[in-house]
């Protein structure tokens, strides 16, 4: 992917005697003139900034949320490296939620890669949101921060600042700039032995015209990128001092507990709050369109009082919908139509008609909740015609706009207070607003801060879910026994174009999507469509290999002749895992490989079956080609995280519907992998030097198929529906190892 450098514009300003340098995605034009024009109509899409203070400290403003992915540190590393800054003097701060810090690079990056930010597509289709509005988001998602904001914003901002500082020093010394070099936040002139700290040059440098095309370093010149740096956000996370949205607190604060219509979209009809109103601490019972809330001086008091509120919700046409109905609808829609083209290669029909053998299989995966550890919450304080907001979000700027529009304020009168996120996984992306709307409407009735908290049950039952998908496969073999065709019909919508595509060299492919809408709200869930599609395609290709009597690893390698990066991750993972060597009795290895968000990942799971007929994953060996690792420790952490998130979903995760509403309520029925189920994880990072790939998501998709493929070898049972907890693998016949 290339983004034309000329589309960017740098701009600077002096603040507090220091240099503030920003980096803008906009049309080429003269720097200062454009800056003024853009500033006037509020359209200054400056994406990243770094500030140099007179005392030589560097502050990097990061327009992304820190939700555990280490993005503040990684992005600061990218700017600081190009700047040749002394890492000890660098701090990262969350960029304020103002238009100046809108996250244009992300949108531009996705626009060139996929056409549209994938995680925003479903909402785009369903609403009147325009691309121009998207540029005004401050979004963290799509594994995009390092790839787009970092590569295009942070590095250029750092490199440009460095050139300006050199120019200033050269001017002051009366020497050519070429004779100066930079190191550890100083400009040096070797011939005369002189040097100046950046902080001494910053104010003067800010007066210069920034270079349009600053020279970026070659990887071998990096001094900070590529090193395992400690994350700046970790120390406050070990002593309780890190402030999450839910930790907003003041002495006069009120707390709201809420009950939302269990069937999505139903409205509130009537409320009897008589028993609740007299309770200690209860201030008010508030009726909203789809919900009723109790506001009290303590969350527990609000929650207890809410139990006494009798609320009636309107009946809807969905009141009797169950998961069984949804699956039946998917099946009949898949049977009824051939759907829309996702990808067509060659002539699948003819290949199928001339086949010597055809293999068919149907797969399903359920809806999933995100269940971030910090339940959804939002604190709003309306006062003096303004509002202050504390909420853990993947998009501060978007939330600012939302609170303003729901609360009837001007955007500029809404102040977002940056906080850490207790997990995101897609739940806190823009447009998953329900919590924000409720909290804003509730708080608007008070002059003190009101913190609305979704209980775990509310969060699980009022999420925007990972879509359930059904997928029907066929594959054919020609008379020589080679795979001749691959057919996949799956239920939409497509949120991530390309997720259902396969890297395998099969001459005829017909991949089509059939839309089948339900009343269940859906959104992006870590890795978006890849979490479903990779389970399907990497399981089915395994079925095809076994049908052909081939070793699934060798079989994949042969079909990956045109994908050397895929081959390499497979080979590295196999070597690391000791694939093909003797395993303890009752153990087997399953493989899966997938490309997503620009990274290619192979995972090999070593599995046995426990006494409850459940897979026990002992070890996962993962090889990831993410181009280049900015912070290798963060890469490993994100891979561990992605694998375990995918494994929890594969083993336990399902959201089912009964009477139109979600059945699961809390962790006992929506479980997670804990210490006891955590496999040993080995990670091999491959530095291919290709464009940077994402990290937050790509490790999630392959794990389910890797485990299922191992389980098949152990039991002869092919798991085609997740989660595993619904299957009993104890009575089974192992498959002969090939």
């Amino acid at each position, binding site marked *: 992917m290339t983004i034309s450098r000329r589309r960017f514009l740098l701009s600077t300003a002096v603040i507090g005697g220091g240099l503030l340098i920003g980096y803008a995605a906009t049309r080429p034009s003269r720097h200062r003139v454009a800056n003024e024009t853009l500033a006037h109509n509020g359209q200054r899409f400056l994406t990243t900034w770094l500030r140099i203070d007179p005392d030589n400290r560097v502050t990097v403003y990061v327009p992304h949320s820190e939700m555990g992915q280490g993005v503040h540190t990684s992005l600061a590393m990218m700017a600081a490296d190009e700047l040749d800054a002394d890492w000890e003097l660098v701090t990262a701060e969350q960029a304020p939620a103002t238009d100046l810090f809108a996250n244009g690079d992300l949108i531009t990056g996705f626009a060139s890669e996929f056409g549209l930010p994938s995680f925003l597509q479903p909402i785009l289709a369903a609403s009147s949101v325009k691309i121009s509005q998207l540029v005004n988001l401050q979004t963290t998602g799509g594994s995009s921060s390092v790839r787009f904001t970092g590569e295009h914003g942070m590095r250029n901002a750092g490199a440009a600042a460095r050139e300006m500082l050199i120019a200033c020093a050269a001017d002051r010394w009366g020497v050519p700039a070429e004779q100066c070099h930079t190191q550890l936040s100083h400009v040096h002139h070797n011939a005369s032995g002189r040097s100046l700290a950046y902080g001494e040059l910053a104010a003067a440098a800010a007066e210069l015209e920034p270079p349009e095309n600053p020279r970026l370093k070659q990887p071998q010149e990096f001094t900070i990128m590529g090193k395992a740096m400690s994350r700046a956000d970790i120390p406050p996370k070990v002593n309780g001092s890190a402030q999450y949205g839910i930790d907003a607190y003041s002495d006069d604060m009120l707390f709201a507990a809420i009950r939302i219509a269990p069937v999505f979209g139903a409205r509130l009809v009537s409320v009897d709050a008589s028993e609740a109103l007299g309770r200690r601490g209860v201030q008010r019972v508030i009726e909203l369109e789809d919900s009723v809330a109790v506001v009290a001086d303590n969350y527990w008091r609000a929650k207890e009082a809410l139990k006494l509120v009798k609320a009636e919700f309107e009946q809807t046409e969905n009141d009797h919908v169950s998961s069984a109905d949804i699956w039946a609808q998917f099946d009949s829609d898949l049977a009824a139509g051939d759907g829309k083209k996702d990808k067509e290669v060659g002539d699948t029909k003819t290949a199928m008609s001339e086949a010597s053998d055809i293999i068919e299989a149907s797969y399903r995966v359920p809806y999933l909740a995100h269940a*971030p550890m910090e339940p959804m919450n939002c604190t709003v304080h309306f006062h003096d015609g303004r509002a202050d907001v504390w909420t853990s979000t993947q998009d501060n700027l978007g939330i600012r706009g939302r609170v303003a529009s729901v609360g009837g304020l001007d955007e500029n009168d809404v102040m977002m207070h940056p906080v850490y996120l207790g997990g995101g996984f897609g739940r806190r992306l823009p447009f998953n607003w329900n919590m924000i709307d409720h909290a804003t409407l509730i708080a608007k009735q008070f002059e003190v801060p009101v913190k609305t908290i979704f209980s775990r049950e509310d969060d699980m039952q009022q999420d925007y879910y990972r879509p359930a998908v059904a997928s029907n496969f066929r594959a054919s073999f020609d008379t020589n026994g080679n795979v001749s065709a691959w057919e996949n019909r799956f239920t939409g919508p497509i949120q991530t174009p390309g997720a259902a595509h396969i890297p395998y060299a099969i001459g005829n492919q017909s991949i089509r999507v059939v839309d089948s809408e339900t009343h269940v709200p859906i959104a992006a869930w870590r890795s978006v469509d890849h979490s479903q599609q990779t389970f399907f395609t990497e399981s089915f290709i395994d079925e095809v290999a076994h049908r052909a009597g081939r070793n699934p690893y060798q079989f994949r390698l042969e079909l990956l002749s045109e994908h050397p990066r895929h081959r390499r991750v497979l080979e590295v993972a196999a070597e690391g895992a000791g694939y093909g060597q003797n395993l303890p009795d009752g153990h087997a290895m399953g493989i899966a490989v997938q490309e997503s968000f620009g990274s290619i990942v192979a995972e090999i799971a070593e599995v046995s079956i426990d006494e409850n007929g459940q897979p026990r994953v002992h070890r996962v060996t993962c090889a990831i080609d993410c181009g280049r690792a900015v912070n290798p420790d963060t890469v490993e952490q994100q891979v561990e995280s992605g694998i375990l998130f995918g494994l929890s979903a594969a083993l336990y995760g399902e959201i089912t519907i009964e009477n139109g509403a979600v059945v699961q309520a809390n962790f006992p029925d929506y479980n997670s992998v804990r210490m006891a189920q955590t496999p040993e994880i080995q990670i091999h990072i491959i530095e291919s030097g290709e464009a940077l790939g994402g990290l937050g998501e790509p490790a999630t998709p392959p794990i389910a198929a890797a485990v299922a493929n191992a389980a098949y070898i152990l039991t002869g049972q092919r798991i085609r529906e997740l989660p595993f907890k619904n299957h009993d693998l104890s009575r089974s016949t192992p498959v002969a190892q090939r």
Partner: protein
Amino acid sequence: MANFRVNGVEYRLDVEPEMPLLWVLRDELGLTGTKFGCGIAACGACTVHVNGSSTRSCVTPVQAVEGADITTIEGLAEAVNGTAPDAPALTRVQQAWIDYQVPQCGYCQSGMVMAVTDLLNNNPNPSDADIDRSLSNICRCGSTPRVRKAIRSLVSA
């Protein structure tokens, strides 16, 4: 009236006896380091020490801690290292959490650190099976491999 000590400070509070300790700490005392995750003792995010033992505060009514000594994540270092001016600001568990870069989003980590501290107090040399058995906290970010590594570093030290 509820009477107890939190991080060495004596409290006498007029709250309902059945109010869970979690909400007393968070909403009455403003001690927000202790986290709400599930409210039903299923995740461990709300773990505090009551007289030194790990306790899930979301299901512990305040009447059950009458007269008790409660330590939260905010007071852990003082409880472990003492209050001398040169006492380390972090416990060895907290330091290991930094050394091994354990937290991701960090939201579960207050509870995780409290639970591990108690585990090591009772069993200074836990086997992997001991760790699996006694640590049932949920981390949705998947920090458990590093939790294990960090604990192992404390055991072999």
